[in-house]
């Protein structure tokens, strides 16, 4: 039995670890486009108003060595930027070491930490902070001579068709969702009812039986166990899941967000199984007054900025 100890200091420590943006402002970015590796997307990037907030040099010969820069974007409230990626194109220390990671250009658009909490109920919204990852500089290095690259932000609010909101989503089970933003982005979504999921499960079993026969399997016990496995592993729906059928030819969908009747974010996992999209809830189960929001990417909602920092002292 392992205890989960939730003392207040621990809460604070956990929260502090998750919000590494509290250091003093150090270096103001001097906008300068730089391109040593390939840019993440073709849209035009403009120089960012960016401040380097933190440098974390996590040094180990074990797991997860990395040097991370926390870059604050004061003009963009955190709740507006729902996802971000930072592609480092040039990074060099005072010894001349190239610190660009081999997988730098493969960085993916990931949900932002602060963005997931929504707009705060009280007080001013915090600014967006994004993170750039480098190789560890050698211990003997004392400064980062230059770090530059491109920041891509997903800001759905910049596109009137960037979001489609569906209040009381559970009541829409069994029919296709209708929304101008979905249409504009070529997206089709249906929420499957329990009965529809049952039909799909049956179809999955029949498809497995047909596949087994096609493969020349004749033993009925083997076929039965294959069919049972196919049906068992098929999404079951129920109170902890919302099962969606999604057509998204342009891959516009960035995320599905859920909120309760009071607008509080409700966190869910998302997976794709058997051609269906499953939203899974481990905490509170979806209730009749919950809202589902579909966030979609477009040229207008993807904002690109360049950044460059020079002579950054290493901690």
């Amino acid at each position: 039995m392992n205890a989960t100890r939730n003392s207040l200091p621990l809460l604070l420590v956990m929260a502090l670890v998750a919000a590494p943006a509290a250091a003093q402002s150090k270096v103001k970015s001097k906008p300068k486009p730089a391109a040593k590796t390939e840019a993440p997307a073709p849209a035009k990037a403009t120089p960012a108003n960016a401040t380097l907030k933190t440098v974390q040099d996590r040094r180990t010969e074990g797991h997860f060595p990395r040097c991370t820069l926390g870059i604050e974007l004061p003009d963009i409230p955190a709740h507006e930027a729902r996802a971000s990626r930072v592609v480092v194109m040039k990074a060099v220390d005072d010894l001349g070491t190239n610190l660009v990671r081999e997988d730098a250009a493969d960085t993916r658009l990931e949900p932002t930490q602060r963005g997931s909490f929504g707009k705060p109920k009280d007080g001013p919204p915090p600014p967006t902070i994004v993170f750039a990852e480098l190789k560890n500089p050698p211990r003997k290095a004392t400064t980062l001579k230059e770090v530059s690259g491109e920041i891509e932000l997903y800001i759905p609010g910049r596109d009137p068709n960037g979001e489609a909101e569906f209040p009381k989503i559970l009541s829409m089970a069994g029919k296709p969702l209708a929304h101008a933003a979905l249409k504009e982005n070529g997206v089709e979504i249906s929420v499957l009812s329990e009965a529809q999921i049952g039909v799909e499960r049956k179809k999955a079993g029949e498809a497995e039986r047909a596949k087994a026969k096609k493969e020349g399997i004749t033993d009925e016990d083997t076929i039965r166990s294959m069919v049972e496995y196919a049906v068992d592993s098929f999404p079951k729906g129920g109170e902890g899941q919302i099962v969606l059928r999604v057509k998204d030819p342009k891959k516009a969908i960035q995320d599905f967000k859920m909120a309760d009747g009071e607008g509080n974010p409700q966190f869910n996992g998302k997976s794709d199984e058997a051609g269906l999209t499953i939203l899974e809830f481990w905490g509170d189960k979806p209730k009749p007054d919950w809202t589902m929001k579909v966030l979609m990417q477009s040229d207008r909602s993807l904002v690109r900025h360049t950044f460059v920092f020079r002579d950054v002292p290493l901690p």
Partner: protein
Amino acid sequence: MKRTAACRVVAPLAFVVLCAARPAEGQANVKVVLTDVVDDRISDGMGSGGLVLMLNLEGEGLEAVKSARMRVKEAKDDSGKNLVNPKTRPPEFSDRNSNAGNIQVALDNPPRSATSMRISGTADLFLPGRDPSSVVKVPGFQARPGKPVTSKGLKAAKVELTVLSKESYVEARKKNRLDEKKIAEIRAEAKERGMKDEEIGPLIEMAKAFDEMGESDFPEHGLYLQLPKASEEKIQELWLETPTGERIETGGYSARTDKDVVLKQIDVKKALPRDAVLVLSLFTEKAIVSVPFDIKEVRLP
């Protein structure tokens, strides 16, 4: 006849004593080894970085060691800087089954110019087999809900605990919830650490989200306990048994500490029998063996 009778009594007793003593003799060549070094260096302002050494045990007879802790006597880098933070909380015992037996030792960051460090101290090994009184059985512990459980073994170990009804436990948890006063304390602490108002907002939201976790999750068949933090620190493990010594199946458990009081809930699969026995494995002095260590050359990454 008398002698034979005495032998009948003494022989099993001697066997029991030998069995109890065996684990103490079972450890040989036990030493502390370094398994990983993480120098987490963060620019000024947050102060949450540090040097973490992962230490483990090697040697014979370690299967009898249930948990261990590392007490650091001295840690210095090659420039002579002391890396022991005086504010660090005393180390707690870590279960040998978790984290592959590795134990974290948190120190201050050495300067960037340092290349190596040295650490010495003592590893405390918890061997319950060395001390029969380290395992305390409490039959009838459910007799007086809301009152401290009476038990000679617990009294001798200076461990106090109270069984609560589900209703009393839920009420106690409510009192522990994040209120305006506690939020103000978090805010003050964050400000002391140099955070700005716009950064404290999300921190508070996160603290509220953690506070919400598990607040509606009180199992129907739960064992609900309240105990002073000092008592909780003496408990290595607790479990439930039938009067005949069979372990009663339990699910997960969680604990919430607020200042000096710990509220602990244990998910029991079925309604707890009235004659269930609470069993505690306690960190007693006799059950702890100390092994000194001195790692002279730790290369800094």
